[in-house]
């Protein structure tokens, strides 16, 4: 399995769902990166003359209650969704790796202390915690990211800690200790590469959860503040104007569903590709 990234890629491409997931994710990433070039209109430009217009050649996905082009808002929304999701899971993942490695390989008292912290974090109901933080700091994209990071860290850290604990008892770590390797060396060169792959799988499966969370909180006006386009905001607008334009909800829902499916497929394919047990071995 470790014989290279090449093999992981090959295994990933051999899986139809993985290819599909990868294609969807890639599409969203391109949308997010090149939004100014891809979007036919300015997503913030108000044109009340054409509000609630149905899909047409001029507006492929129609317009909203202020006459803003929905397709452009969806494309810019991808920027918000992926921006929040990738930043939040990325930072939470890094912090989780660090804390998990320290808890798993460090002294016992530190492990107990960290576990106590993680457990108290996870014992708080997530939504209540999120609402509390947002009430204190006020709704904004930055607050949203902070909340997501805080609630995700314990899970990632526990995951890394469990992996680290089992690796710590393995022969190759003991062999390093017998060669006088420093703790920093053991953690960075030998433990880290062995835990990071599995965490990537977890992270990619968590990205859609975070996208949903962002949309949900934005829908509740607790996340991304309007007029910044976010799939949650669009969904909210669509819900409010359900009577005038029932199509808006659907238009805003499709990217959410697709992103969820895309990242989940990719994550599952990645898990299979990284799992050496699933790779056939010839026996002689």
């Amino acid at each position, binding site marked *: 399995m470790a*014989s290279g990234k090449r093999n992981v890629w090959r295994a990933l491409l051999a899986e139809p769902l993985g290819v599909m997931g990868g294609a969807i994710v890639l599409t969203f990433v391109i949308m997010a990166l090149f939004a100014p070039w891809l979007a036919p209109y300015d997503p913030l430009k108000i044109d009340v003359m054409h509000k609630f217009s149905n899909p047409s050649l001029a507006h492929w996905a129609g317009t909203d209650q202020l006459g803003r082009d929905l397709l452009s808002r969806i494309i810019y929304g991808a920027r918000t969704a992926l921006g929040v999701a990738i930043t939040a899971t990325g930072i939470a993942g890094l912090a989780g790796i660090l804390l998990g490695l320290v808890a798993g390989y460090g002294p016992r008292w530190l492990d107990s202390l960290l576990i106590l912290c993680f457990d108290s974090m996870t014992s708080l109901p997530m939504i209540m915690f999120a609402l509390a933080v947002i009430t204190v700091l006020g709704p904004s994209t930055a607050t949203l990211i902070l909340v997501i990071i805080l609630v995700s860290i314990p899970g990632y850290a526990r995951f890394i800690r469990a992996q680290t604990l089992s690796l710590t008892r393995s*022969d*190759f770590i*003991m*062999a390093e200790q*017998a*060669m006088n390797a420093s703790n920093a060396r053991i953690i960075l060169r030998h433990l880290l590469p062995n835990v990071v792959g599995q965490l990537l799988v977890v992270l990619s499966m968590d990205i859609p959860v975070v996208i949903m969370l962002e949309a949900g909180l934005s829908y509740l006006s607790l996340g991304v503040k309007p007029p910044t386009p976010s799939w949650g905001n669009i969904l909210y607008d669509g819900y409010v104007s359900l009577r005038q334009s029932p199509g808006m909800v659907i238009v805003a829902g499709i990217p959410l569903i697709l992103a969820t499916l895309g990242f989940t497929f990719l994550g599952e394919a990645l898990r299979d590709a990284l799992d050496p047990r699933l790779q056939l071995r010839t026996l002689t």
Partner: protein
Amino acid sequence: MSALYDVNNVSLDLVGPASGLQRLLPGSAPRMTILSSLSLSIGHGEMLGLVGESGSGKSTLARAMMGLVDITDGSLSFEGRPVKSRTDFMKVRQQTALMFQDAVASLSPRRKVAAQLIEPFEINGVPRPDGDRTAEIMLERVGLAPSIAQRYPHELSGGQARRVSVARALALKPKLVIADEPTAGLDVSVQAEILNLMTGLRRDMGLSFLIITHNLAVVRHVTDRVAVLYLGRMAEWGPTREVFAMPYHPYTRSLIAAEPQADPRKRRADLALKGEIPSVLARPSGCEFHARCPLARPRCAVEEPQPNMITPDRMVRCHFAEETRT
């Protein structure tokens, strides 16, 4: 001349699995005696074999000698200097290499062989002797192709992985190599190659070896002296040739008799040793071997035998060693 590594009266206890209330009361969990008053010395340039069944504490002793587990009692000394503190062990580890039973598992799974071979130099701040070609030259020394350097551990065969671990063990030109089951899981012809490699290195570099194994054939052919361990205690030690020719301890005798004979004409009729090695949680009283010993007498169950030096270089711990040996 003083010995290279001296293990003096070493005992090692571990805290056993705690149950229920024991978990709440620190110190009440059962203690398991893994090693008990064990003494052993390895001379300069000597090849010493340590044999015993699994559960006898062989691997624990090796780890204790490297400072990977703490001893409870007794003392260790390397080249006459006591080994106690972390810094003492750091020095010992620079001159002692440990080879693990599972050679593939002892290599870091996601790093290439080359990176793992030069690691001892990096860790100890020693310049690589042959620059960029160091790994290749190390591989050549143990009879492997230089291209192996670019492989990952799981791409190696059992014999290749074993050679890589020999190469890594020799990196810093150690004085002592502790090899835990160096031939386990290898084919007979490969097994002989690894043993030849080790004896050759000993001849050329004056290395000392501690070979830990349950394979008596290996011990018989390559070691100078052999020590027999049973349930964390030394049963017998002495020059290999003498011990195999005339074992004093009934356990040693049973072990030698238990070896399968690759000759249908020499099939054994009866069983050399019945039962299994007891658990360290239920250590028998008196002589720990008495429950399985074919020659046990009432005294064996109550009184611990003391080390008995039959000759200056032969020790046996058995009440009746001298009378039962015929």
